[in-house]
């Protein structure tokens, strides 16, 4: 690549991305671009500046992508491990899918499965950039904006470089499997040869087009928030897969996919896979239509990508433009909160409850924790169905939110620390946080327990189950407060997956383990009582409701008191423990 004149004049033989000092692997995209960038200001002879040709750019981009991958691996052992795991997983899963699809060759529902898998993979490619933004630096056109590159060669180069990676490898294996499962006869083979690259290119172009079109959004705070919710999305995605597999199992086989595949086979890129089947079956018109649909979609995606790319490279970054300031805007939006704020008395309790609930909604990490607790709390009673008592999961999951309270604040905990002067302040602070959790947990638990009782038509166990559930919530809130004060740890704010800062993992897991054991021990008296009372007939077990409420409240109160004393005494230590993220 010779994008700049001064480079060309001094080193006419240079054709690659390698910098002048001979370093083979540029560690960042700037490296190959670096020597050229100052050329704008450098006193080079006018008219000598060249624009690199298409193939040269493609070669450079492919080498750059390769270098980025290789250098990323050298950077840290953790990254290497993650990459190797992903690569192995892709090869193993992709390979197994390939073998599975080969085994399906000639079977009844092979086409339904192939079409479904292709469509699902394409969907994955479409949403991937939204949740895994910033993983690939060659993807960021902003980095190329200063280089003298024309959009079309750049597009070809980016497409080529996109084909390097774990994702494309997996997609290639899958597309190969789908084609091999369906290709019959010479016509089928011929269409298959076209279909595999079409599927792969369409998937890659789809991901790139989506990423480029949303690149401003993805680089903004909202985009980063979205990426932080990716852990949650993956959890929900896996649950969907789980339910889907269950459905397939329930309905006796892959025939369950048929209604979906009947629609999906008309849509790109699955239509290319359908074309392979059609060609083998002699339905040539259908095959041509299928291939054409995917090819057209690929062209449309490339056009969309090109347009976004061009716009991105010539438009100013709107993030530096001052937004129109609107002084007349009323504090709307949080009317519900304002309503809540009005209901609460003045002082620390009210503002802390308000802040905790606002964070549960606005802060992606906190939101993930709340959504996980609520989601799992709803799910567990249904997965482990059979007893009203399984609704206690809800209370348990919600109670976990009280753990590592100060870690959830991050280093902003200094604002709390600066206003806590004595144990009373610390107690009020912690009590307000537990009240915020209780405000959601108690009604939610009541609803889930009542629904469980109604679903199982087991009203006799309603009162004891509710009593034990509320006791569990109280115990966990109390223990969570103690754990927050004695074992605070940082929650990294830049990752959707990691919830413990490096070096604090053992501390976090130990405190969780300890909390679980102590929590179980603390709940034991009620469970024993339940067993004893159940022997004497179900009628007597209702006392567990008031008992559970009183017991849970008492344990929570005790925990808050212990935690408050520790918190007030160890504010600087807590601050430094939670400021590592």
């Amino acid at each position: 690549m010779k994008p700049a004149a001064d480079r060309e004049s001094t080193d006419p033989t240079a054709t690659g991305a390698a910098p002048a000092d001979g370093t083979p692997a540029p560690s960042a995209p700037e490296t190959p671009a670096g020597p050229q960038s100052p050329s704008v200001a450098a006193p080079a002879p006018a008219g000598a500046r060249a624009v690199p040709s298409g193939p040269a750019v493609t070669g450079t981009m492919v080498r750059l992508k390769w270098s980025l991958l290789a250098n990323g691996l050298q950077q840290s052992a953790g990254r290497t491990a993650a990459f190797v795991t992903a690569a192995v997983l892709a090869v193993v899963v992709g390979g197994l899918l390939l073998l599975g699809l080969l085994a399906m060759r000639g079977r009844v529902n092979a086409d339904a499965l192939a079409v479904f898998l292709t469509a699902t993979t394409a969907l994955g490619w479409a949403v991937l950039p939204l949740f895994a933004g910033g993983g690939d630096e060659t993807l960021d056109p902003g980095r190329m904006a200063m280089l003298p590159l024309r959009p079309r060669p750049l597009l070809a180069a980016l497409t080529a470089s996109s084909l390097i990676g774990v994702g494309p490898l997996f997609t290639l294996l899958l597309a190969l499997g789908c084609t091999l499962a369906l290709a019959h006869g010479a016509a089928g083979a011929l269409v298959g040869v076209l279909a595999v690259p079409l599927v792969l290119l369409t998937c890659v172009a789809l991901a790139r087009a989506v990423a480029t079109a949303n690149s401003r959004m993805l680089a903004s705070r909202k985009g980063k928030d979205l990426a932080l919710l990716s852990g949650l999305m993956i959890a929900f995605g896996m649950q969907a897969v789980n339910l889907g597999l269950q459905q397939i199992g329930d309905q006796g086989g892959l025939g369950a996919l048929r209604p979906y595949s009947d629609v999906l086979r008309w849509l790109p890129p699955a239509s290319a896979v359908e074309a392979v089947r059609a060609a083998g079956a002699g339905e040539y018109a259908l095959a041509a239509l299928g291939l054409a649909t995917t090819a057209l979609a690929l062209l449309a995606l490339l056009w969309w990508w090109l347009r976004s790319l061009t716009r991105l490279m010539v438009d100013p970054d709107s993030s530096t433009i001052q937004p129109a300031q609107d002084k007349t805007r009323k504090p709307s939006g949080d009317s519900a909160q304002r309503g809540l704020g009005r209901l609460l008395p003045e002082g620390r309790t009210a503002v802390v409850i308000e802040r905790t609930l606002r964070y549960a909604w606005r802060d992606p990490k906190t939101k993930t924790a709340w959504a996980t607790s609520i989601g799992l709390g709803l799910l567990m009673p249904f997965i482990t169905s059979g007893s009203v008592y399984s609704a206690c999961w809800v209370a348990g999951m919600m109670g976990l939110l009280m753990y590592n309270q100060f870690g959830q604040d991050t280093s902003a905990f200094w604002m709390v620390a600066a206003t806590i002067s004595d144990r009373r302040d610390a107690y009020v602070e912690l009590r307000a946080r537990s009240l915020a959790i209780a405000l959601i947990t108690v009604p939610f638990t009541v609803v889930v327990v009542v629904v469980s009782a109604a679903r199982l038509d087991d009203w006799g166990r309603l009162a004891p189950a509710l009593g034990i559930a509320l006791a569990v919530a109280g115990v966990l809130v109390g223990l969570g407060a103690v754990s927050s004060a004695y074992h605070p740890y940082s929650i990294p704010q830049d990752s959707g997956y990691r919830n413990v800062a490096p070096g604090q993992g053992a501390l976090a897991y130990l405190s969780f383990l300890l909390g679980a054991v102590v929590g179980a021990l603390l709940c034991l008296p009620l469970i024993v009582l339940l067993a004893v009372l159940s022997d004497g007939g179900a009628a007597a077990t209702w006392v567990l409701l008031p008992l559970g409420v009183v017991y849970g409240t008492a344990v929570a109160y005790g925990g808050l008191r212990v935690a408050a004393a520790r918190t007030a005494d160890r504010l600087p230590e807590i601050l430094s423990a939670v400021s590592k993220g």
Partner: protein
Amino acid sequence: MSSQPVEPDVHTPAGGAAAVRIEGLWKRFGEHVAVAGVDLELPAGRFVGLVGPNGAGKTTTLSMVTGLLRPDSGTVRISGHDVWADPVSVKARIGVLPEGLRLFERLSGRELLLYTGQLRGLSKAETERRAGQLLDVLDLSASQHKLVVDYSTGMRKKIGLAAALLHNPEVLFLDEPFEGVDPVSAQTIRGVLERYTGSGATVVFSSHVMELVESLCDWVAVMAAGRIRAQGPVSEVRGEASSLQEAFLELVGAGERGSGHELDWLGGTADVATAAPAAAATPDPTGPNPAAADGGSR
């Protein structure tokens, strides 16, 4: 309305009394000694600058003085109250704007102030009144409903300053309040701080922009390698030197390093090489000047 955002209702500036008295303050992080025996006495009612190069221990010192970091040894008294023995008296008297720590950024600017004010024990109505005035004076009214996470650096510093001033503290500690702040915001912050010290309160702030310190402060403490190298009225610390910057470089022992001979290829022609680095010598006095602390240009 905006002429008197902060009423000096709790100040009892005793002329000449020490607002902050630090004795034998030490802090080690493993092998590294961040603060090595600091003794300081800062007068009340003054604008005090704590200056020093990066890594001098300014932030560590301010964190220990404000109760956010526990010292290994030493005592800190604010208006006569021990920071670690009597936090109830101290925390009500000080305001803090730390550097490098987050705020509750998922609150809007206004929500953050209402939250902080009520944590400080102010009534809701009073907090709302003061917050409104501070937002006005600091030119944040238009952004008061925007989340702090979307604020620029200058706006963050201003909202942090507002949160620190809300309860009208006697002593205000600001860690690098002008770092990364644009000149307009810097002027706004400066105006508020000058008005505030004018009412008898004490401001202690750290910085490495010497011009700013010289024009703003009447008392200065120079820190390097965890120790205080000089303290006193600005004119005294400046001494014979032509500027505080020069006196500072002398005190922290920065030599003539980097005068430019190694970079004689830099610039259009070889003979302007020595003049080129000096181009950074006329920064905006209120703006950040990252080159100043490196002391390369003089």
